[in-house]
């Protein structure tokens, strides 16, 4: 695990924020992009202008980019391995006798 971006984000005057928008009630917030803003309030307002000009969303989250820790692509296989070798976690693993309904 390391920082998402290796180089410094430039002067702290206007840090980078990651923007998540929820398009409609019932759907989840999706990452839509990033922007620079001096504080969270301005980040939110700029995100409103930038990412929801055409009714793309009803809710916005902004997160300082520095607060995000990302998994590394190098470790991908080892890191996500447990999901692959425990096939019994998937419903398709189990055999259902012919003729059984609603199962």
């Amino acid at each position, binding site marked *: 695990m390391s920082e998402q*971006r290796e180089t410094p*984000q*430039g002067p702290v*005057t206007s840090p980078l924020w990651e923007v998540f928008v929820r398009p409609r009630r019932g759907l989840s917030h999706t990452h839509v992009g990033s922007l620079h803003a001096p504080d969270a309030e301005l980040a939110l307002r700029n995100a409103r202008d930038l990412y929801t000009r055409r009714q793309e969303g009803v809710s916005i989250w902004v997160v300082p980019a520095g607060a995000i820790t990302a998994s*590394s692509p*190098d470790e991908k296989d080892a890191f996500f391995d447990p999901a692959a070798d425990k096939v019994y976690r998937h419903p398709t693993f189990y055999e259902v006798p012919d003729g059984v309904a609603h199962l």
Partner: protein
Amino acid sequence: MYGNDFAPQEDAPGGGLLGQVEAAETALREAAARSRAGATLPGDDPAAYFAEVIDADHKIEPRDWMPDAYRRTLVRQIAQHAHSEIIGMQPEGNWISRAPSLKRKAILLAKVQDEAGHGLYLYAAAETLGVSRDELVELLLDGRQKYSSIFNYPTLTWADVGAIGWLVDGAAIVNQVPLCRCSYGPYARAMIRVCKEESFHQRQGYEILHTLAHGTPAQRAMAQDALDRWWYPSLAMFGPPDGDSTHSAQSMAWKIKRFSNDELRQRFVDMCVRQAEILGLTIPDPDLRWNETRQAYDFTQPDYDELMRVIKGEGPCNRQRMEHRRRAHADGAWVREAATAYAVKQRAGAQRERVAA
């Protein structure tokens, strides 16, 4: 919200650009879902892994290993693309206060706002490659990075705003739609957003010219004059001919570019001819004619010496555009400082409250 849906445009050769954007978006999702057969582990040999991802039409993401030259090329291309969006606000911004009706003015304001947004999407995409936006803005202000040659031409009449929408944004779309399939994920995704909005710009420009071309003789003449002045600079937007294009071959191999400059230019000409006919305007090229064997239009190439002069800073408005951008940056310094000071104060206040609680 505004404007008409010009159906004929969709039927024109090379039309249905929005459809192509949708297709690119679908392809992107499918590529993400598809697993690569016999994939090597990224740790083993990063160069082989990179080549394999490119071959399989998957996307390279910010944290993946990539050749330094690939990173540099992308930084240059995406940054200059972003600069173009920002500088491109000036020629049209020139007409906001003089737009002929409130409706046209509102549309133009929305469009210029979109251009600012496109600049920001693109700067954000460039930043995933490890440069900061402030550095890139410095490079622009120092004249060490370029922006599109087209924005060094003046907007002399209201019809120019229409010509920019139809021709300049039209050329941009032809250029950008293939970039929706570019091998670098953040750039491809930014281009999908940009292209969807850009198509509104192209149509609003076309509508302006359509209205003028069907108006009074004076309005019609104004529309024709705008087409006469913007046609060749728009053709030059696709860059030098394939033989002289320095970055093309490598960019195509890396799947950053999907088509050559000349291919895209041809595609643009082919779709403009019919659109100009519907406008009732004449493309200022006496040698423009259909070539039955090539199934494409023959046309006069733009003046590439002029293109090189404009790129080198000797176009009609280069100095004015850069001066304006530098002045806005310098004059805005105290506002940026005030915002930073306020943010620091707010953070300190929030911290005190947390300590007190």
